[in-house]
C-alpha cells in the first residue's frame, strides 16, 4: 500500500516534470512550426539564472518563479529578432540554425562559468509514508504543472492575445489579411515559449545536475513527447507527458532508471509509428 502510493507519486512527478519541460516547446512548435533544437539550452539558462541569483542572495522562490522565466523570455525575444524571424517556413534551416544556437549557448555558458556550478538545495523538506520518504517538492512540481496548464489554457482561451494567436496558428495568411500583425504574434509566442521553458529550468534546478550540457538530456525527451502529443498544445502535451511519465517511471521501477529511459524512447517511437499525427491528432481533435 505504502509502496503503491510512493509509486503513484513518482509517476505524477515524472509526468509533471515532463509536462513542464515540454510546454514551452509545444507552444513554439505547435504555433510556429519552428523546431527549436536549442530548447534544452533554454532549460539550462533558466536553471543557471535560478542558481546564480540564489547564490547572489535572492530568495529561491523569487529566483525560480520570477527571475528564470523573465530572463529566458527576454533571451528568447532577442533570439527571435536576431535569428528565428529569418527562418519562418524553412523547416530544415530552422533546425540547423537552432542547433547552432544551442552549441553557441553551451559554449558561451562554459566560457563564462566553467564546466560545473554549485546547485541549489531542494527547498521544502520531506515527509514519510510508512517506510518510505518523499519530498514536498514533488507535490509542488505537480501543483506547478497543473497551474501552468490552467494558466496557458486561460490565456489561449479567454484573452484577446490567445484568440489572435490561435487564429495565426490555424491560418497565418488569413489572419494577416484580417489585419493581424503575424510578425508580432510570432515574436510574442517565441518569447512566451522561451519564458515557460525558463520557468521549467528554474523549477528543475534544485532536482537536477546543473552543467552547461544539461540541456541535451532534456531535448530528445521533450521532442519525442511533443511529437507524440501532436498539434494540440495542452491536451496533446498533457496526455503524452502523462503516458510517457507513467511508462518511464514504471520501467525505471521494474528495471533500472537507464532502461526506464530506453523503454520510454522505444514506446514513444512505437506511438509515433501507430499515430503519426500524435495523440491529439486522433483523440483531441481541434482542442487546445
Amino acid at each position: 500500500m505504502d509502496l503503491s502510493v510512493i509509486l503513484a507519486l513518482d509517476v505524477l512527478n515524472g509526468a509533471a516534470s515532463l509536462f513542464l519541460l515540454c510546454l514551452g516547446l509545444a507552444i513554439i512548435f505547435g504555433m510556429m512550426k519552428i523546431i527549436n533544437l536549442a530548447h534544452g539550452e533554454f532549460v539550462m539558462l533558466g536553471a543557471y539564472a535560478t542558481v546564480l541569483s540564489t547564490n547572489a542572495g535572492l530568495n529561491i522562490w523569487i529566483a525560480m518563479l520570477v527571475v528564470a522565466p523573465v530572463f529566458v523570455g527576454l533571451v528568447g525575444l532577442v533570439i527571435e529578432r536576431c535569428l528565428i524571424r529569418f527562418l519562418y517556413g524553412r523547416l530544415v534551416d530552422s533546425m540547423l540554425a537552432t542547433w547552432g544556437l544551442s552549441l553557441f549557448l553551451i559554449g558561451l555558458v562554459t566560457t563564462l562559468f566553467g564546466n560545473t556550478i554549485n546547485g541549489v538545495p531542494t527547498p521544502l523538506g520531506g515527509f514519510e509514508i510508512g517506510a518510505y520518504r518523499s519530498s514536498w517538492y514533488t507535490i509542488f512540481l505537480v501543483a506547478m504543472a497543473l497551474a501552468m496548464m490552467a494558466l496557458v489554457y486561460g490565456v489561449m482561451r479567454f484573452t484577446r492575445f490567445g484568440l489572435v494567436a490561435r487564429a495565426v496558428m490555424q491560418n497565418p495568411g488569413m489572419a494577416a489579411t484580417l489585419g493581424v500583425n503575424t510578425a508580432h504574434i510570432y515574436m510574442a509566442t517565441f518569447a512566451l515559449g522561451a519564458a515557460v521553458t525558463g520557468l521549467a529550468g528554474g523549477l528543475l534546478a534544485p532536482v537536477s545536475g546543473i552543467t552547461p550540457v544539461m540541456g541535451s538530456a532534456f531535448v530528445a525527451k521533450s521532442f519525442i513527447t511533443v511529437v507524440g502529443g501532436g498539434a494540440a498544445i495542452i491536451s496533446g502535451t498533457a496526455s503524452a507527458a502523462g503516458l510517457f511519465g507513467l511508462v518511464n517511471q514504471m520501467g525505471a521501477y521494474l528495471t533500472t532508471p537507464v532502461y526506464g529511459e530506453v523503454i520510454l524512447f522505444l514506446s514513444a517511437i512505437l506511438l509515433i509509428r501507430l499515430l503519426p499525427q500524435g495523440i491529439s491528432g486522433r483523440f483531441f481533435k481541434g482542442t487546445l
Partner: protein
Amino acid sequence: MTRQTSLALQSLALLAAILLVVALPSYMDLFTLMQVTLFAAMGVLSLSLAFIWGFGGILSFGQTAFFGLGAYAYAIAAINFGDSTNAILLAVLVPGLFAAALGYFVFYGRISEVYLGVITLTVTLILFNVVNSTAGDSYTIGTARLGGFNGIPAVPTFNMPYSPSDILSPEASWWVTAGALIGVYLLLRLLLASSFGRVAVAVRENETRAALLGYDPRIIKLGVFVVGGAVAGLAGALYVNWGAFVGPTIFSLSISAEIIIWITIGGLGTLLGPIVGCFLIQYLVSQIGSQQAFNANLVLGVILVAFVLLLPQGIVPTIRDGLLRLARLGRPRRDAKSLASEPHAAGAK
C-alpha cells in the same frame, strides 16, 4: 566542358590525391600524421551523411549511432578474434543491418522529415545510455568487456589481412585510412552514377513524382540509409584504429552536430564539400583546443548559424559556381547537380 575533358580532369585529380596520400608520411612528423589520419577517418564519416542527406534527402541527426555501433562492433570483434580483418567486415555489417531495421520502421511507416530527425536523435541517445550503463563484469561479449562509461581500452589496431602479428605502422594506418576515404568516395560516386543513384536523387527531388513513375520511394530511401549506415560503421572502425580506444561518448550529440556542420559549410549535395568542411572544422577545433579563452562550441555554433543564414549553399558549391562563371564565357550552364564534385574543387582542397 565536354564529358571527356571532365572525365580526364577527374581522373587527374584522383591521381593527384593518390600521390598526395602516398607521399605525405615522408613530409610530416608523426604527430601531424596521426592528426591527419583522424581527419581522414572523420572524412569517411562525413561522406556517410553527405550521401544520405545530400542525395537521399534524409536528414539524420543521429549518424553517430552507426558510427558508434561500427566502432563497438570492431572493438568487440577484434578483441575476440585477435585479428582485425573480419572485425572490419563486422563493423560495416552490424551498422548496416541496424540501419536496415531502423530504416524499415521509419520509411515504411512514412514518417515525415521532422520526426525522422527526432527519431534518429533519440536512437543515438538510447545507445549512449545503454552503453554508458554497461560498467561491471557481467557485461561482456565473448572476451571483450564493455566497460560502461570507461569504454574499451587497448583495442587491437589493424593488422595485415589474416596475419594478426603484422600490426600496421602509423604510416600504413594513414595509407589505409586515407585509402578508405578515397575508396568510399569513388564507390559513392559510382553508386550515384548508377541507375540506383539517379532514382535516389529523383526521390529526393520529388517523392510523389518518383512514385508515380513506378519507383517505390520507401525501398530506395531504405537502400540509401543502409549504405550510409555501413559507411558510418567503417568510419567507426577507422576511428578505433586511430585511437585504440572506444567509449560511449562516441554516441554523443556533439559529434552528430559536428557532422551536420561539416556538411552545411562544405556544401550539401556534393561529396567533396563535406570532406573539405570536415578537414577545415576539425583543424579549427584542434586549434581552438590549444587555447583557454573560449570554448570550441561557441565558435562552431556561430559558424553554423552564419552559414545557414548567409551562405546556405556551402563553400564548395559557391567556389564551383564562381569558377564555372569564370570558365563558361557565354556558353550555356550545365546542370549544377551533375557537377557536384568536379576536380577543380578538389584543387581547392
